[in-house]
């Protein structure tokens, strides 16, 4: 269903793959010839059916722009995006939950409010500004990271991680605010719950309280939000990848849209879609694992 909607949408994009491939100097008949040679002139419906059949059997077609098989191209980029996404996620989770927990502990204080405002400000400054600042500082002023991530990838572990760290951090920073907010408020909610009070007067220490009671209960909403983030991260962020010259899927998809590279676009969107769905599913599973009430309502 998703694929159908998308396929249709992509087909109404004005512009012509043949024209894009051949450039403005080519003649009409050249463009038409190119289109028929690349199967780009079939109507949306037949195109969709044949594409779907191919997709299912692993024949994802050939990129109209790059002239290479889509499968390899998309999956290669996809692996990179996953790596970046996972790293960003690994940065995000402890950072956001740590900040959220700290804020919850100092709820209502100046520090709490200041942190909220700072995080929101960070989140509202576009990624491409934060990213550029990072690049200026870490790639130009103190050159410890490459300007273009691809220059660092594959050239030694240190450079490799260095090349991924900046984009991952940029990616993570945008969402820290939302996750920290959720963590903060659900921790606060938990500490207001009667069972928390009951545990407190049983004389548990702060650490025990957090481990045994707060963590599980407050994790629910946070996991829900994190699931969304994970999906977005793994699907690749066009802006961050573009900015850092990181060879990820998001960047590929934006280019594919602009150039109307149908096979790449559809395959890429499908892959991100599947991944994000998987992330949502994982979220639900994780939720069920921490909160038995969810299990009950799903089961019945």
């Amino acid at each position, binding site marked *: 269903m998703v694929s159908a909607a998308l396929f249709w949408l992509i087909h109404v994009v004005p512009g012509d793959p043949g024209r894009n491939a051949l450039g403005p100097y080519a003649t009409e008949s050249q463009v038409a010839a190119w289109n028929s040679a690349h199967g780009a002139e079939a109507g949306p419906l037949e195109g969709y059916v044949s594409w779907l059949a191919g997709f299912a059997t692993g024949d994802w077609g050939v990129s109209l722009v790059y002239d290479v098989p889509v499968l390899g191209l998309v999956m290669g980029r996809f692996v990179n995006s996953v790596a970046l996404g996972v790293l960003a996620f690994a940065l995000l989770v402890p950072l956001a939950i740590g900040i959220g927990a700290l804020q919850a502990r100092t709820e209502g204080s100046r520090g709490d409010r200041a942190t909220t405002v700072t995080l929101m400000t960070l989140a509202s400054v576009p990624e491409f500004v934060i990213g550029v600042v990072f690049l200026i500082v870490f790639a130009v002023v103190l050159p410890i990271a490459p300007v273009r991530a691809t220059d660092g990838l594959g050239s030694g572990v240190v450079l490799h991680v260095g090349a991924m760290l900046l984009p991952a951090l940029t990616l993570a920073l945008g969402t820290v605010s939302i996750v920290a907010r959720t963590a903060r408020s659900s921790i606060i909610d938990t500490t*207001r*719950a*009667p*069972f928390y*009070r*009951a*545990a*407190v*007067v*049983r*004389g*548990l*220490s702060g650490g025990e309280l957090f481990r*045994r*009671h707060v963590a*599980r*209960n407050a994790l629910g909403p946070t996991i829900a939000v994190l699931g969304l983030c994970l999906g977005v991260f793994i699907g690749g962020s066009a802006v961050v990848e573009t900015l850092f010259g990181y060879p990820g899927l998001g960047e590929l998809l934006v280019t594919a849209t602009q150039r109307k590279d149908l096979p790449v676009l559809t395959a890429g969107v499908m892959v991100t879609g599947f991944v994000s769905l998987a992330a949502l599913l994982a979220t639900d599973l994780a939720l069920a694992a*921490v*909160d*038995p*009430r969810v299990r*009950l309502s799903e*089961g*019945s």
Partner: protein
Amino acid sequence: MSVVRVRGLSIDLRSPRRYRRVVDEVDFDIDDGETFGIVGASGSGKSTIAWALAGHFARHARVSADRLEIDGLDVLSLDRAALRRHRRAGVAIVPQEPQRALDPTARIGPQVARAISSAEDSARPSVIEVLAEVGLDEPESIARRFPHEVSGGQAQRIVLAMALARRPGLLILDEPTAGLDAVSREAVLSTIGRTVQRRGSSVLLISHDLTLVAAHSDRVGILVDGRVVETRPAESLFSGPRHPWTRGAVAIERSRDAAARRNARSAGRTVVDADGVGVRYGGRPVLEGIRLRIERGETLGLVGETGSGKTTLGRAIAGLIPHSGEVVIDAPDVPPPVQIVWQNADASLNPRRTVGQTLSRAIRLLDGQTTPLLLAERTGLTADALDKLPHQLSGGEKQRVALARAFAGRSAVVVCDEPTSALDPHNRELILDLIVQLQETTGAACLFISHDLAVVRRVSHRVAVLRDGRMLETVSAAGMDVDARHAYTRNLIAATRRLASAGAASPHGSSNGVDSAAMDGSGPSSVSPDTGTSTCR
């Protein structure tokens, strides 16, 4: 020697906008091994005091006290570590809403185990032992469940078990039996009594139930609007109350036993006819083969221990849950035939709609011939209540709104589910009167659910007894004492009787109230039908 010494304790709590004095210059002592009772209306600050003794205060609370000592420790000046030690070793609290006092994400077993391990006592009993101790039937099964999978009464016992297992020096019981029927209540109280005696603990017993507190305390403090208005020995509570609140409450408790509803009903046609009704929750049968009929203008009382399926039956009759068997509501021309007055009035009113809106909508939908104002007046609400939102109403007022709504039109059947369990004597009486009155004027058939037999008999024509999801018998409310066939029913009658007489006669002044004669050694199962009836007048 005093274990607890409180002088000039004042607590101001911040309601959303401003501070309000909730506990006002309270003084009391609890001696070693003594049971001190606190009674008072809902919202008078009882729970707040309870938590204060454990050194816990609501956020933004302003606390001042000349003295707040337990075992000679000044609770207010303890540092974190010392406070933790005090909580681990010195006090245990059984909170008022037991279900919510359990961590919803963890199974019962581990929770209890943790509570036990946090006690500084070398001889730790096992989880199963602890649960069995408080009379839970299938401790193994319970230990494996999550808190939302047990009934309110079971939760209450679990929380109690957690507190008792820790053998604290000071045991704080906040409404420990509110959700329990008379039989379970006796069992629970005797368990408490045994444990307390063994350990020599002091007890703070909090309840809005004068009879209960009088029967199980040595001394009783009366709390009205955050002030201790009088402190008396338990035995003289019913004999010479001074404060108007106490006098009023005592009067009501005295008349409590005033037998069953007397007015006969006009025999009418059968409105509710249920046959073979069964309900399962996730495969577990909760109700089985229920048969009942209610006629027009009749009130059928439904009693049974907690978790026996009373609420479930009410919901099945209203058609709110899937069930097997047949429920026929014979009410032609009445579009919404069944209304429910829920146990928890608070949750049953839309928090964002004013009373007026709620009532006028109910009149429209239930095809009533009245106006919100008339309806309000009939249920004893003042006109200005119509403009208020539920949270601006007192508990009793909320109950009345819920009743007014249920009786707003021509509904043929009204299910009243525990409408008084959370109310102090004054409010309870008002509501019961109202139900009788409303039902008489509208002629609706009524299913009245409660675990309190005395209350049920006040309003019902017939009483049905439910146990473990099966209908044991249905007897007439008036002739119940004689007609009851089943041992369980007889137990229930006997236990209720004892409870009532304990308050009305206020016979004993033992040194340790909890360990009183009424429950000494007599578990519920050992009460024979004979003893049950013999106590009866």
